[in-house]
């Protein structure tokens, strides 16, 4: 710690420390360090699984590295971008930015309104001057500069101390490039604007997910979602009440003849009818990748797909106790779309029934390395669909226990195995369940679609702010401030000098061009004796 108090200087009171802290925080050096810290802080967020984007991966990681994960949880490394320390860095950066922008904005405003400052006589005499040709006129120089959008102002007499009547000289002061600082301010303000738009969008927006099988549909209301993440400013009644019915999900895969790309998805389209509000007419909408449905600011994206075999279960007397599509999730990374899931039959049978299912879109019996045979899927299109019952359980499904339960997994705590139920079904076939429970029929193959619903009222503002930032950036990088002085000597001859800050030396080239335009270049001379 270096104390800002030098020996012998008065000690700083609390106000002084505060002022010192503020000045340090709003200094450019601190802002740059904070920026660097922000970049550094983002790195763990890209290397570790993050809870908001992939909660399952976080669970996997925690299971695989329990010791390390406990520490990582403690320092919020699994949710870096919402972590308190990440927020602290960008809030400090915002404060630093505001503290920097306010005085700069004020200074810019003052400079914008006042004409270019009159230089001291010493500065003029120190400058490097180019002599224009004899007979060159001041109004020519003025016109040339005006055409290049310089502000022009004449100071007469020059030098100010010269005696009237001794043949008056004058100094023409031309400057431009004040837009540069405006662009700079706009860029930084727009960055703050992006942050505000993001915060607004989070507060007044929501995200939800819903999975629907063909023939089904959903209403945009909280009770129908499989998951729902509202912002703090969203009430359940705020959601626009539109309805989406999924008629068909078209999926095509690259054919087996396409070499190593075989089986890659080629196209998706969800054919839906949408009712924008109760009582409104329906419209047909095709939802696909890069083509979301939009209703009153809520967008509906097709984000997932898979198979949902239609299954009927009958009791011993042949009465249907369950009928409909069962959503099975494709195994991760399996290009042939082998899908797994469970069927829960809570009512109508002698006991509650749970079945573990695997669906093979193109099932083939292939020999295994051990000499046996195994049913595997060789292609994702449902051309030889096979439904495999891999395990069965009877007892209490636990649906009334009050514990949250996944629809894709069985809670077998209160169940006992039902041996003999394993088997393979093709569409239209029926199999008897053991112990006289009844029968199960594979009626046919449907698909399901996973939709993500997102409403973000800040997104338009974020885009506008981002474009403003880009515009400000371009202006601040490519508009150069420049000052040109034209000195009319008492004898009427003209001298030209360009003044450049660091990095804007092309002013010299410009003044050179002015001198050439005025007639002839260009003896350089210093005016001082």
């Amino acid at each position: 710690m270096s104390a800002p108090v030098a020996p012998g200087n008065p000690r700083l009171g609390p106000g002084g420390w505060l002022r010192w802290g503020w000045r340090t925080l709003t200094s450019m050096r601190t802002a740059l360090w904070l920026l660097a810290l922000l970049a550094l802080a983002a790195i763990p967020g890209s290397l570790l699984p993050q809870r908001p984007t992939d909660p399952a991966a976080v669970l996997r990681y925690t299971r695989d590295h329990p010791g390390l994960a406990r520490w990582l949880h403690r320092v919020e490394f699994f949710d870096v971008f919402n972590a308190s320390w990440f927020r602290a860095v960008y809030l400090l950066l915002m404060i630093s930015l505001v503290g920097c922008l306010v005085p700069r904005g004020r200074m810019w405003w003052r400079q914008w309104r006042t004409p270019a400052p009159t230089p001291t006589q010493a500065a003029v005499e120190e400058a490097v001057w180019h002599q224009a040709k004899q007979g060159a006129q001041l109004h020519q120089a003025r016109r040339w500069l005006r055409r290049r959008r310089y502000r022009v102002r004449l100071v007469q007499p020059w030098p100010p101390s010269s005696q009237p009547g001794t043949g008056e000289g004058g100094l023409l002061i031309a400057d431009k490039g004040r837009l540069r600082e405006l662009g700079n301010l706009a860029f930084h303000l727009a960055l703050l604007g992006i942050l505000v738009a993001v915060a607004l969008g989070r507060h007044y927006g929501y995200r939800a997910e819903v999975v629907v099988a063909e023939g089904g549909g959903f209403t945009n209301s909280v009770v129908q979602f499989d998951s729902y993440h509202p912002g703090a400013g969203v009430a359940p009644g705020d959601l626009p009440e539109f309805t989406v019915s999924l008629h068909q999900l078209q999926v095509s895969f690259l054919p087996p003849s396409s070499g190593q790309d075989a089986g890659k998805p080629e196209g998706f389209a969800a054919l839906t009818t949408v009712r924008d509000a109760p009582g409104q007419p329906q419209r047909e909408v095709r939802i696909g990748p890069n083509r979301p449905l939009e209703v009153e600011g809520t967008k509906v994206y097709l984000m997932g797909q898979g198979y949902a075999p239609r299954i009927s279960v009958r009791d011993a007397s042949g009465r249907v106790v369950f009928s409909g599509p069962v959503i099975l999730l494709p195994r991760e990374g399996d290009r042939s779309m082998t899908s797994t899931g469970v069927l829960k039959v809570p009512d109508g049978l002698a006991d509650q029934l749970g079945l573990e299912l695997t669906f093979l879109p193109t099932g083939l019996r292939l020999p295994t390395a051990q000499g046996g045979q195994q049913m595997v899927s060789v292609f994702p299109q449902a051309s030889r669909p096979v439904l495999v019952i891999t395990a069965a359980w009877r007892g209490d499904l636990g649906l009334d226990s009050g514990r949250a339960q996944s629809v894709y997994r069985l809670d077998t705590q209160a169940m006992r195995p039902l041996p003999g139920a394993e088997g393979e079904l093709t569409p239209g076939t029926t199999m008897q369940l053991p112990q006289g429970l009844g029968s199960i029929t594979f009626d046919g193959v449907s698909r399901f679609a996973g939709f993500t619903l997102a409403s973000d009222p800040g997104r338009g503002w974020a885009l506008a702010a981002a474009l403003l930032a880009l515009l400000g950036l371009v202006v601040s990088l490519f508009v150069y401030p420049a000052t040109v002085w034209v000195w009319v000597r008492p004898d009427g001859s003209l001298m030209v000098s360009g003044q450049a800050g660091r990095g804007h030396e092309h002013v010299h080239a410009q003044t050179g061009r002015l001198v050439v335009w005025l007639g002839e270049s260009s003896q350089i001379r210093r005016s001082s004796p």
Partner: protein
Amino acid sequence: MTVLAAVLAATAAEAMHRYGQLSNSLVKASMAVYTCAMLAHALYAARQVRTPARPAAVEQLQPVGVAAGPGSSSVPDLEPQQPSQPQSRSEQRVGHVALNLTILAALVLTAAVAARVMAVHRPPWGNMYEFSLTSALLATLIYVVAAIRWRVVGLGVVVVPLALLGVGLAATVLYVPAGGLQPILDSSWLVIHVATVVGSFAAYTVGAALCLLYLARASSRPSWAGRLGWLPSAQRLDTMSYRLHAFTFPVYTFSVIAGAIWAEAAWGRYWGWDPKETWAFIVWVLYAIYLHARLTAGWSGRAAAGLALLAYSGFIVNYFVINLLVSGLHSYAR
């Protein structure tokens, strides 16, 4: 009807295959020409390396018509200039040969990319293979323009090997046969977003090469400084590097914004801290720090060049490490 469709599909597949093969051969041919160009550049550099007879006094070249006053610094302009060390006729000839070989390599690679476009019927940046080819080509073209406008053939000593490395990695590690696109990539934003990313990657590559040359040229070790007299002065290299970075930063910013717009259309959010997005942000912040340091804090020279190289290494991490080792929504490498 079905027979006709099948025949048409077969012909299309056949054509795709043939153009794909042609493209692969042209890529190999371009690698051969790139190798020649690289050797010519090495020769160009080697012939001019002189034992450090003269100290770095040659650096103080002033542009015509400007004298250094107390108020104005003396960074020279970028008008074409001779290198700070006079060249003999034969040295100049070697430089011309090196540059012309580079142009030839770029032409062959352009033909390879064009054949790939004929094979796949879409912009040639749908996977890492195509992205690498296109950015190597673009970096070469930027170098050629810089070499002609700014007379810095010496820049090719770094850029040409880098381009060859890019093409070589593409042809071996990253190779993907000609094929279609993943459905999610089938959008006009592919043209805008990825094209600007390719452009900024290529320009930042040339910028990084300038920074490397600057660091070598500005080195305080006399053995280095004396042997590199054939390069432009350290000040000119610094100015060129700044100009290129300042030009590229808005392009890169635009590519990130375009990516956000596309992400909103494809995934339902414009920013989600996907690993690729996170690193795009990190790289953006690093280049922003570089520009601030150059413009406002008045850094120049080694610290600034180091920052620019750090930012560029972030880009490299985003391209190789994130694409190949970290899975995320942007995993389209293959």
